[in-house]
């Protein structure tokens, strides 16, 4: 660590301790007051994510229209993905069409990073670039990813893509580039500011309301209520990865 870093860190460490002691009781009251209305408490600026929150998604397949790609298009737009579907192109979210082999029933649903509580990609990553944030969002730190692609081998959901070519036209909020692995970030750049992932917004805007996003740890959030009320499934539950993304009607 260089001296500047060290001094800064010490200073911030002390400052944070003092500030924490001063405002913590207030924050706790605030949190208490907020708990009732189902909204996750927005973090104070400068406050790191914590494990009181676990972000999750509930996808109601009965409301997901076959052929509708609004969530996919919104994701591509938000994250500056090309949107083409060659075998080397990134797809952070994809529509999968299923047919029940016994009954012939057809189901359509989006598949994205399942934001596992026990993510295999994180276990196998040699440099620790694949990591899970305290609030359950599984990400690739593209500053330490060396592009070995072992996480793609390990992911049970094929949720990850490798950037095979030089990128252009990135959004300032969503850097991405050649030689690293990437996947759905749950639009972390928006969620950190109190926003909602773009796919969820697009699905709602189209009137389908097939995706609910929220805090699985907050018993009063809509997603928690829905998960309590109806039977939902996690993909490949046999692997016990405890996915943050759940499906209804599968």
């Amino acid at each position, binding site marked *: 660590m260089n001296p500047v870093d060290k001094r800064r860190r010490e200073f911030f460490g002390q400052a944070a301790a003092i500030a924490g002691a001063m405002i913590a009781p207030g924050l706790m009251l605030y949190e208490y007051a907020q708990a009732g209305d189902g909204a996750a408490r927005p*973090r104070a600026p400068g406050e790191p994510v914590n494990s009181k929150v676990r972000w999750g998604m509930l996808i109601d397949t009965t409301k997901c229209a076959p052929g509708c790609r609004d969530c996919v298009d919104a994701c591509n737009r938000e994250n500056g993905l090309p949107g083409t579907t060659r075998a080397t192109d990134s797809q952070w979210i994809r529509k999968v069409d299923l047919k029940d082999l016994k009954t012939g029933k057809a189901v359509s649903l989006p598949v994205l990073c399942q934001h596992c509580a026990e993510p295999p990609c994180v276990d196998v990553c040699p440099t620790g670039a694949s990591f899970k*944030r305290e609030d359950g969002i599984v*990400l690739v730190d593209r500053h330490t990813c060396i592009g070995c692609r072992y996480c793609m081998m390990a992911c049970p959901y094929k949720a990850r893509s490798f950037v095979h070519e030089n*990128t252009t036209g990135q959004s*300032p909020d969503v850097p991405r*580039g050649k030689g690293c692995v990437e996947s759905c970030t749950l639009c972390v750049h928006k969620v*950190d*500011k109190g926003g909602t992932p773009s796919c969820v917004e697009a699905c709602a805007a189209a009137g389908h309301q097939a995706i609910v996003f929220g805090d699985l740890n907050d018993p009063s959030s809509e997603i928690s209520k829905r998960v309590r009320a109806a039977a939902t499934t996690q993909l490949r539950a046999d692997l016990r990865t405890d996915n943050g993304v759940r499906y209804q009607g599968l």
Partner: protein
Amino acid sequence: MTAAGFLRAILAATLLLAGSGAGLVASAAGPAVDAARSGPCVEDPAVMRRSHMDFLKHDRDDTVRRGIRGIKHSLSACVDCHASKADGRVLGSEKHFCQGCHTYAAVKVDCFDCHASTARPSATAAAAAPGRTR
């Protein structure tokens, strides 16, 4: 526009009015660059010249790993401030802010493989406003 973007725009506009006509002092190190700046740098320029790489690398973990937005040394904020008046970019020629020095100092900086080298539209709008010179 996000709240942060809005605040930034307000800040930029205020500083614009305050600083209009006051030319910024050219740096002694490095070549002349054509950059649109909308306020004082996040650190003293002399410190910044020496240590910007360390600041950037230190703070990025705060955003990437700990989810803290609006970090002091945000790369996208550097770009928003330091983008060229002419084309809104920090790269492209030796006259561009982040490129000029690096070519001069012969360092290879790969950040813009991934990070946008163009200012956000809101920031360029501010940068395109009249009355500001380097």
